[in-house]
């Protein structure tokens, strides 16, 4: 078991001492069976997908209705209790990691789709419905919900709202914030609010826009209204190999400059390609330094034309190989290696850290070079998989936690990568969220006044700072060390089976 590098919020001993009274209170507003305090059962809630950080909460509650959520939160308000909202617990940044004196509000019972409206092209779902379930519910009529985070089989739409989740298609179709029309939420005071609805745009301040990506700091989402899109008529992908990362980066820039917005534009470097090919035999070329997957979707006439144009651009930028998918099976095969990249890397190294920086596209090649130099300096290997189209990097730092000092080196390496992203005009996190993972780097990206302005928003919703304590913003007292996402081959990692990209 690893010793966490980041301080979780400090629990209040007096609150823990009142546990029995608190449980009685919670059981007065919920069915007794929906309040969990059994130590063994609480273990299921002690971490999320950032598994190095574990903490059993005081209790877990599983409300069934919005009114019950409001009742729990009013009780928590009276008692001064801290709250940790939780969807499916797939956060990669520790967004749902509990605190010892907190009540985890699990939204798993909110699992019903309430309405599907094809005429207005919206779906209304309770917040615990999984991302994929929404697309599946409308698939028969050839509609889908566009944002597709890699954990979509498990992650909830409420969690997507909290994290403003992305996915491989967000270059063309946007993030959660561009696809959510409304929510129902409960404030820390226990007030039920409706923000947005089935219409477009806010009539007053856009508090919906503020809630999306607020990482559980401002309230609990109970219901989400999303817009759905008609499925594109067709989709094809190109698999393009390059002898240098520079060539691949230049090709990415050329595609965008040519006015083409691909549905997906992904890049992998040699170590990632090799690991993926060994794992799933996707048919990737191995004698290349970088591989691009470019997916075009839309009307058939358009897709075929764009495939030709991208093919020409690839040749002009020195592609060593270029294949266009001829059928759906081949397109899916192109993606298979990319989607298995994280577990594939997990097979070639005992442990890895996954980073999530976001940079201007034109910085791709120089940043790759700098990461290679950092790899030498820190004496650790790295495999790179990128959402190249929107400049979102996922460098995977390979290390072995059993080698003394290697974890610390990996974390120092990761911290250097994120600082590099900020230095070239980028940001700490493109889609995984700050959580506890990048909290202590926030001061590298933001100045004290920038953070104060954000703190005031937090205070406007949650003046007692009871919601998701210790997340996103550096605490007043903090550890000097910074940590990253730790994946340990030896540990029973949650959701280890999910594809990650």
């Amino acid at each position: 078991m690893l010793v966490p590098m980041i301080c979780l919020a400090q629990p209040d001993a007096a609150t823990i001492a009142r546990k029995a009274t608190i449980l009685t209170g919670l059981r007065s507003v919920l069915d007794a069976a929906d309040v969990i305090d059994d130590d063994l059962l609480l273990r299921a809630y002690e971490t999320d997908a950032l598994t190095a950080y574990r903490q059993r909460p005081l209790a877990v509650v599983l409300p069934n209705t919005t009114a019950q959520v409001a009742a729990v939160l009013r009780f928590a308000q009276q008692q001064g209790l801290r709250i940790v909202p939780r969807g499916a617990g797939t956060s990669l940044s520790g967004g749902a990691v509990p605190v010892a004196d907190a009540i985890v509000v699990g939204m798993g019972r909110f699992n019903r789709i309430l309405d599907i409206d094809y005429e207005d092209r919206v779906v209304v779902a309770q917040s615990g419905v999984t991302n994929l379930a929404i697309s599946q519910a409308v698939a028969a009529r050839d509609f889908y919900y566009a944002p597709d985070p890699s954990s979509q089989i498990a992650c909830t739409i409420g969690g997507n709202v909290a994290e403003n989740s992305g996915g491989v298609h967000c270059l063309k179709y946007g993030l959660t914030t561009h696809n959510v029309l409304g929510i129902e939420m409960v404030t820390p005071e226990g007030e039920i609010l409706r923000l947005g609805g089935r219409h477009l745009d806010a009539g007053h301040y856009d508090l919906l826009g503020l809630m999306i990506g607020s990482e559980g700091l401002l309230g609990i989402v109970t219901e989400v209204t999303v817009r759905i899109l008609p499925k594109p008529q067709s989709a094809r992908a190109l698999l393009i190999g390059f002898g240098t990362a520079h060539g691949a980066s230049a090709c990415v820039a050329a595609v965008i400059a040519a006015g083409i917005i691909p549905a997906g534009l992904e890049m992998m470097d040699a170590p990632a390609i090799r690991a993926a090919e060994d794992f799933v035999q996707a048919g990737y070329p191995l004698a290349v330094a970088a591989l691009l997957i470019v997916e075009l979707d839309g009307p058939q006439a358009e897709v075929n034309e764009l495939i030709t144009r991208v093919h020409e651009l690839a040749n002009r930028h020195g592609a060593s190989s270029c294949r266009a998918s001829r059928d759906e099976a081949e397109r899916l095969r192109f993606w298979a290696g990319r989607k298995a990249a994280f577990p594939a890397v997990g097979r070639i190294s005992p442990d890895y850290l996954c980073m999530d920086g976001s940079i201007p596209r034109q910085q791709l090649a120089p940043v790759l070079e700098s990461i290679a130099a950092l790899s030498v300096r820190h004496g650790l290997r790295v495999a790179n998989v990128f959402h190249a189209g929107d400049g979102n990097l996922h460098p995977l730092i390979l290390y072995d936690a059993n080698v003394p000092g290697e974890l610390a080196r990996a974390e120092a390496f990761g911290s250097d990568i994120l600082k590099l992203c900020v230095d070239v005009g980028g940001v700490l996190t493109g889609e995984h969220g700050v959580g506890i993972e990048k909290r202590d780097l926030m001061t590298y990206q933001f100045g004290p006044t920038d953070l104060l302005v954000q703190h005031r928003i937090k205070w406007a919703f949650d003046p007692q700072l009871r919601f998701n304590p210790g997340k996103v913003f550096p605490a007043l007292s903090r550890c000097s060390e910074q940590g990253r996402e730790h994946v340990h081959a030896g540990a029973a990692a949650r959701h280890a089976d999910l594809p990650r990209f």
Partner: protein
Amino acid sequence: MSIRPSNESEVVALLSAAGPAFELVAGGTKRGIGRPVAGTMLDLSALSGVVDYQPGELVLTARPATALGQIQELLRAQGQRLGFEPPDAAVLGAPGNQTLGGVLMANSSGSRRVTAGSARDHLIGLRAVNGRGEAFVGGGRVVKNVTGFDLPKALAGSWGTLAVLTEVTVRVIPAAEFESTLLFAADSTPLAVELCARGLGSMFEVSSAALVPGRGVALRLEGLMKSVASRLTGLLGALKQSPHTVLEGAQSEEFWRQVGAVAALARFPVIWRLLVPPRQAARIIGEIEPEEFQLDWGGGLIWVGAQQVDAGRVRGALHGGHATLIKASAAERGAHAVFEPQAAALAAVAARFKSAFDPDHRLNPGRMS
């Protein structure tokens, strides 16, 4: 009296010291929207100029008072544009030069908004000074960013009541190679809304759908010329409506410029802007019985032209959504709620949110009240 700061530091100096409340003005085209503001004019027109534009990044950074026309020209030269299609302000506001900052603070989007997203969706980063005189940044210069609260979303559409923008970064998109518009006569509003829904819900990638007085139902297709032609054929086959007219290229562009500007309602002294679930549009029109109206966004945006403000009748027809009194005399805007009144619990949160930025109401005081 007016004060004209020449840079961000001077804005900070003005707002960090005790002083008057300000009416924020740059291009001035939207001064007549919202409750009348009493304050010293803060002339922001000096905060202008493009700071950085790199077409390969699909991102543009400019100071907020940069003329929208200048930005559009710059983008056009690179085959790019603002995806949210900011509409001309001549009908709804005062004549003059719209600025990028004004468009973002009004969250003003044109007909393509229904598929390409709003002004708010395209604002990815900003520098600003709040009512406390604190200069801060929000968002960034990259399209994918979940670092901290999404301040650009929260500030877009705040009508200058939270902070003074000093720099903004917006996403831009490649301009379409070609566009065509399919026009049908509409026998009834329900049929028009149904045709819009069928178009937008089809696989033919309809980018805009409107019902325009005197012109009928309009569905726009954009993209590669070859693709537009084949989708047009497909769409016609699917909708089975005749007769129809097709506008192509510049004709189509001009048509949508008029739709965005709500030119058809120019003669009315009172204009309401309603955002509603599209399937309710026909019912709402039936209940309000307006003298004239235009539907956009597939029915989700209703423009109502009237001789008099009849707030009860307009707002009474809503079940979900909201209505803004976008054009009326100053006296009428003083007498009626211009923005949709909020439920008490929501209003309380909104008031605390406002106070986080501008506790002393120094920025456009009362404009959204």
